[in-house]
């Protein structure tokens, strides 16, 4: 149509409308045009859509996608081996080469970690972001990235915690344990040292612990999560008695689903709260909620519904 078009001469509200109608990738590419354009896009951040940012250090990839997953864009963060691109652009004050690829762009940085964090910072200015980290624990820089993200007060869609070295456990846990309120789904895949039991000073919305033998009954009774999944737990039928008594009297106020896998859970005619496990349907003392159970081999799944 009109080219070149003086985009930045338009009023702020009009620019905001234009940015709203752009796709995620178009907005990111436009933000790389110049600092002035970037500032205008950042000014409209509050009106921007919420996006989920998947950090995948293993594949050197940051995937940005909409909550309905209909719109996505990938940013690859590569090490620059000296490629000189005359069309280089600036991101967060660093000059770098950018190449367009199918569904995204490749960016080349002199410092890989700095590149990753710079892209994250750039995205945070454009969008309202929620982060997901699945397999980053293979990277040496995993903990540094998570700490930085927590410092930036970002929200996490999914956070996977896995400690590579035993020595890192105390320090790292202390850094993040009071910030887990920013996490929607927490997956803990580490096996902890016997002398270290993580203490939660804040809780995510949903928690899934793969090796949960360290997660005691006392910890569970204080857990306000909506979904709790414990694998390889050391809890047994007696503990279930305690858990359900607590729930009946108003404990676990947010609980919608509890899944426990434990070799100590037996379904051999034993009862919980005086009832046979197979037929159990219980209600809270005030009658406001109902819980039903599914039994598996060494596992129990409790689903809570609000009573009619």
């Amino acid at each position: 149509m009109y080219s070149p078009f003086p985009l930045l001469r338009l009023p702020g509200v009009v620019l905001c409308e234009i940015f709203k109608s752009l796709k995620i990738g178009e907005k990111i590419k436009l933000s790389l045009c110049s600092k002035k354009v970037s500032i205008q896009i950042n000014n409209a951040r509050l009106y921007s859509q919420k996006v989920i940012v998947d950090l995948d250090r293993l594949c050197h990839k940051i995937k940005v996608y909409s909550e309905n997953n209909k719109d996505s864009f990938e940013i690859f963060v590569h090490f620059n081996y000296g490629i000189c691109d005359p069309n280089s652009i600036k991101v967060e004050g660093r000059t770098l080469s950018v190449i367009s690829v199918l569904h995204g762009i490749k960016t080349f940085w002199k410092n890989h970690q700095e590149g990753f964090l710079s892209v994250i910072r750039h995205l945070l200015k454009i969008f309202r972001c929620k982060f997901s980290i699945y397999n980053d624990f293979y990277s040496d820089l995993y903990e540094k990235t998570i700490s930085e993200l927590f410092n930036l007060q970002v929200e996490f869609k999914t956070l996977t915690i896995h400690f590579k070295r035993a020595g890192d456990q105390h320090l790292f846990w202390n850094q993040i344990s009071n910030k887990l309120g920013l996490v929607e789904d927490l997956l803990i895949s580490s096996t902890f040292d016997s002398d270290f039991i993580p203490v939660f000073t804040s809780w995510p919305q949903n928690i899934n612990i793969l090796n949960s033998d360290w997660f005691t009954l006392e910890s569970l009774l204080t857990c306000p999560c909506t979904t709790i999944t414990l694998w390889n737990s050391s809890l047994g039928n007696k503990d279930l008695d305690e858990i359900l008594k607590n729930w009946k009297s108003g404990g676990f106020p947010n609980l919608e689903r509890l899944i426990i896998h434990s070799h100590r859970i037996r379904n051999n005619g034993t009862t919980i709260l005086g009832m046979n496990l197979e037929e159990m349907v219980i209600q809270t003392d005030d009658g406001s909620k109902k819980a039903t159970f599914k039994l598996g081999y060494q596992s129990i799944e409790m689903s809570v519904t609000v009573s009619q």
Partner: protein
Amino acid sequence: MTSPASSSEVKYLIESSEGNTFDVSGAALRQSNTFNAMFLNIGADGPIPFTDYNEATLKKVFEYCEHSVNEENYSGPKHQDDLSKWDLNFFNEMDQKMFIDVINASNFLDIERLTSYCCERIARMLRGKNTQEMIKVITLPTAEELEAKQKVEEKKAAAAKKVAEKAAETAEKTETLEELPVQQLVQTTRNKLTRKYLSFSNE
């Protein structure tokens, strides 16, 4: 000059930056939320001063409004491919300067449908392009140009204030309507418009 009771039949006088006046139907004017907030219920005594925009621009904007009077209620931005032949001709007839003036005026008058179509047209220029191609599509302004833009925004804020004052003046003269609610309406609108334009001119 105007009657609030039958605004679709009445004509309103609009004053442009050149000081010229021309008629616009109430039905067309009602597509402007700015107008609705300030004049619809109280009427206007004398020409409505949209003096930040020239006659050609205002006529183009209201040409669009007159055309869309009989269209169905606006239900969010349409894809460019869904635009009617008339809409496409309307946009294609404009040169770049007129297009920008129309966006600015439509934005000030808060004509949702027209502003949205204009924005979609600009977004379309950027679609499917990489960063280097986008840089070629948009002209990046110099510091002087940005400063000039800020001055324009400040001028618009002043114009908004002037229009609001005119509305307030009209409200004071309108004795047949309940006095207090009208004054409150005008005051709220004046504050809202002034805040809106000052906030963007400060960016």
